[in-house]
């Protein structure tokens, strides 16, 4: 589903070249729930933005659902992003002057779906996250947990092949975070492929597999014994 081979990402200035990712390889299979962890500045978010086709990379290969994305132009990348990827952000990133319904509609509009199809998908995804009654509310009228559920509904509405989540519970209190996480797990059980970036070890253990990034390189922990949340919290 998501395959990066020896991928690198360098930020260049006139005097210095800094690698955010170096010789970075990862293979996420269909239906997997992968947690990407690592300390601040390790390159987690850069990995996610490249995976989401929001940023170009400097070298290596990236295959998204079998498509080599290296030579795609902006239109092709946008189309691929729209069709294959659903984003869930830490800050929810709902558009404040659109209500819940219109927020979820955004990616469907860009896909060019008809009004009936859009409506059906929006209603389905709202039902899925339990917010059918809030369709006409504006983001400011919702709690943080509800906003994140709307963001998830928006990601789901497009029936993406891959869900990319960036610290999805980072801005939520424990109870709300639990709700959101349970929703992600439920989606995974239903067959969604999820890649979740987090620095929270408690979240990471809920994933099927954890990929640890240090200094822009992958340390695959798949073969290591799973850590216990409590122990992890002290690290």
């Amino acid at each position, binding site marked *: 589903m998501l395959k990066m081979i020896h991928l690198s990402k360098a930020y260049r200035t006139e005097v210095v070249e800094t690698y955010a990712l170096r010789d970075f390889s990862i293979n996420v299979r269909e239906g997997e729930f992968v947690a990407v962890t690592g300390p601040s500045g390790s390159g987690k*978010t850069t990995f996610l*933005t490249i995976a*989401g086709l*929001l*940023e170009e990379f400097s070298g290596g290969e990236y295959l998204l659902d079998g498509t080599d994305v290296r030579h795609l132009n*902006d*239109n092709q990348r*946008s*189309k691929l*992003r*729209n*069709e294959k990827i659903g*984003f869930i*952000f*830490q*800050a929810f*990133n*709902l*558009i*404040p*002057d*659109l209500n819940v319904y219109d927020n979820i509609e*955004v*990616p469907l*509009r*860009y*896909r*060019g779906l008809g009004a009936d199809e859009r409506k059906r998908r929006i209603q389905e995804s709202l039902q899925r996250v339990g917010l059918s009654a809030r369709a006409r509310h504006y983001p400011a009228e919702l709690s943080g947990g509800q906003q994140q559920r709307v963001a998830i509904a*928006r990601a789901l509405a*497009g029936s993406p092949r891959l869900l990319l989540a*960036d610290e999805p519970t980072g801005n939520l209190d424990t109870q709300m975070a639990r709700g959101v996480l349970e929703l992600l797990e439920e989606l995974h059980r239903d067959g969604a492929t999820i890649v979740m970036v987090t620095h929270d070890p408690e979240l990471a253990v809920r994933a099927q597999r954890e990929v640890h990034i240090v200094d822009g390189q992958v340390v695959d922990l798949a073969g290591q014994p799973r850590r216990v949340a409590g122990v992890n919290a002290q690290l």
Partner: protein
Amino acid sequence: MFAYYLKLALRSLKRNVVLTVLMIAAIGVGIGASMTTVTIFRAMDGDPIPEKSSRLFAPQIDNYGPDNKKVVAGDAEHLQDQITYIDAVNLMNAKAASRQAAMYVTALPVTPPSRDLLPFQEQTRATYRDFFPMFQVPFLYGAPWSASDDEDRTYVVVISRELNDRVFGGANSVGRTLKLDNHDYRVVGVLNRWQPLPKFYDLTSSKYGEGENLFIPFSRAIENQMQGAESSNCAGYTGAPTWDGYLHSECVWIQFWAELPTVSDAARYRAFLNNYAAEQRRTGRFNWPPRTRLYDVREWLIHWHAVSDEVRILVLVAFSFLFVCLLNAMGLMLAKIMNRAADIGVRRALGASRGTIFGQCLMEAGVVGLVGGLVGLALTALGLAGVRQIVSPGTGRLTHLSPTDIGIALSLAVLATLLAGLYPTWRAAHVQPAWQLKAQ
């Protein structure tokens, strides 16, 4: 997608009302100022007789000689803008054009048939019958007088619709008698509304003034020794202090127009004028080589500076002002778009291409331009109402917004705003979604 872009544009504009109002105000004020001046300019610069302006000609004949530099200030060639009575009669008699008319303006006391109305003075044009078909003057009742009326110096008159309304209550007055300067004139025609602007056929007085209300045969006016009411230039030549002496002097006071349907007709007429001047030299009246000119209506208006340089400069200033307003609008648009960089980043993440973002932001600029254009139109109407208060009624009458003007103003507003919006929109399309989302 158009409807969706429009919906988003309206929402976005509502989101920051202050910035939106400032942008619309900037566009509106710029459009208002430029459209006001352009309307005045176009009114002054308009072709008063578009169907025939290239076929109607005014001749100039140098009867003062090249040494006389003081004749017409501002005319580099020192040619007179009117002609003498001698030349007028000679040109009329030559019949070298398909139509021709000499003319001048005088003033006549009118004694209305109704005793309820007091006598009044009225501007009167003394001319030939060709004046009416040549200038396509529309008639409400009757027709021009005949060629024999010109020859026989008949007491006939053509009156304007306004005068007919005033004196005859708007009735068909053809055949009725009107007392002018204590002579009975027979009304042969009533004009419909006719107001060429500028008043190209006689620019010696007000270029944008009202036309005359009375038209009588030139020959009758001369016979009755009616003096010209406009400028007469004798350039130091003094004729005998009698009417006959004045007629045979070198004073220029008569306007002359000829209709020359084809280019070759005009060429022939030029040759005719030169031959005429050469003949005058042979007879001893001129002692210099022929110097003549022939201008069509457009050239004549330029020659007369019908549009003053001040108005041209004003138009330039107004458009510079519009440019400054657009720069302001561009700055505001940029600020607005940069304010929304995060939203744009999200939209990009959700599948919007650069082109989509570009279209969406450009729609917003278009809406601002359209509303700005409407505001500009309102300001133009206000500006023109102000202009009408301070300029002559002649110019004032011209300064109205036509449907074409409204179309031009709105198109100009939208196009200019789209142009000003290009850079902010380009910036929006190039927002780096990754950076925006990381910044969150």
